[in-house]
């Protein structure tokens, strides 16, 4: 997995959570997976395709999700309320959108699709040749997981480099 492609997602989640939770999250675990992802809390996934293709899953402990929902709603939101899932989707949209913006500004072209609530407990791998990195962020309200599965089309990159020369 290329860390330069993952770093924008980490930076984006860090910044957005710091803004919404008023505290800086801490990365406490990093694992590589070839199998699918097992959901731990309330999750949303966003797919993207193009020069970099793949899927990002944002998975939050219910209390952490409720804190984000409260921030977005401007009112206290209980973790059992259905609207908390919607908040996870919106957070995923922001985090992935911000990361994609950074990657695009570095010359990677791809399209992002709207976020979807993840209901299955066990998700299939994003695709053949996809490498998944799962990061666990610790916050005072619970853990937040980011599963980044992407496939980088090297051939297109080489073509671009050739054209640039």
């Amino acid at each position, binding site marked *: 997995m290329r860390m330069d492609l993952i770093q924008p997602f980490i930076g984006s989640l860090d910044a957005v959570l710091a803004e919404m939770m008023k505290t800086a999250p801490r990365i406490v675990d990093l694992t590589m997976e070839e199998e699918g992802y097992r959901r731990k809390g309330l999750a949303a996934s966003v797919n993207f395709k193009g020069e970099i293709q793949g899927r990002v899953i944002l998975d939050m402990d219910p209390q952490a999700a409720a804190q984000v929902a409260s921030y977005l709603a401007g009112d206290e939101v209980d973790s059992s309320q259905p609207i908390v899932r919607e908040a996870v989707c919106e957070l995923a949209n922001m985090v992935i*959108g911000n990361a994609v*913006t950074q990657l695009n500004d570095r010359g990677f072209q791809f399209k992002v699709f709207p976020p979807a609530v993840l209901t299955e407990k066990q998700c299939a791998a994003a695709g053949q040749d996809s490498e998944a990195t799962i990061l666990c962020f610790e916050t005072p309200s619970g853990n937040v997981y980011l599963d980044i599965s992407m496939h980088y089309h090297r051939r297109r990159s080489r073509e671009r480099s050739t054209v640039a020369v």
Partner: protein
Amino acid sequence: MKQFEALTRKKDNQAARYLIVDDSVFARKSLAKMVESFGGQVAGEAGDGCTAITEYSRTNPDIVLMDITMPQMEGIEAVERIVQGHPDARIVMVSSVGYQDNILAALQKGARHFVQKPVKPDALYEIIRYVLNDEGVASPVHAGGEKDR
């Protein structure tokens, strides 16, 4: 939420009316709260580009806050169609995806401004004040409220 000095329409000094377009209920709710804190009225809401076009014709708002990535019809296409029928439409793009190609496409189709999510109320307030005063197209403001240079 912080209360701002009310933004009003130049023509009659009445509260500005907004159409909020976003597929996320949360984003619409959050933007509606900001609009109210700016002294505005939410004239309508839409969850996709097709509904936005219908709602624009129905409500004739002073400002549209338009997401980009949405199901059925994306925001940039909706901007194009609204501006075709209403050349004076004031549309501000509000999206988490803020790369240059997207921003340029939206501005070329007739959007007046762009703000990146997560939206900071102060940044959005300044943009709306600017757009309501018909001060033309400006450089985009990102999440931190800092303009591109």
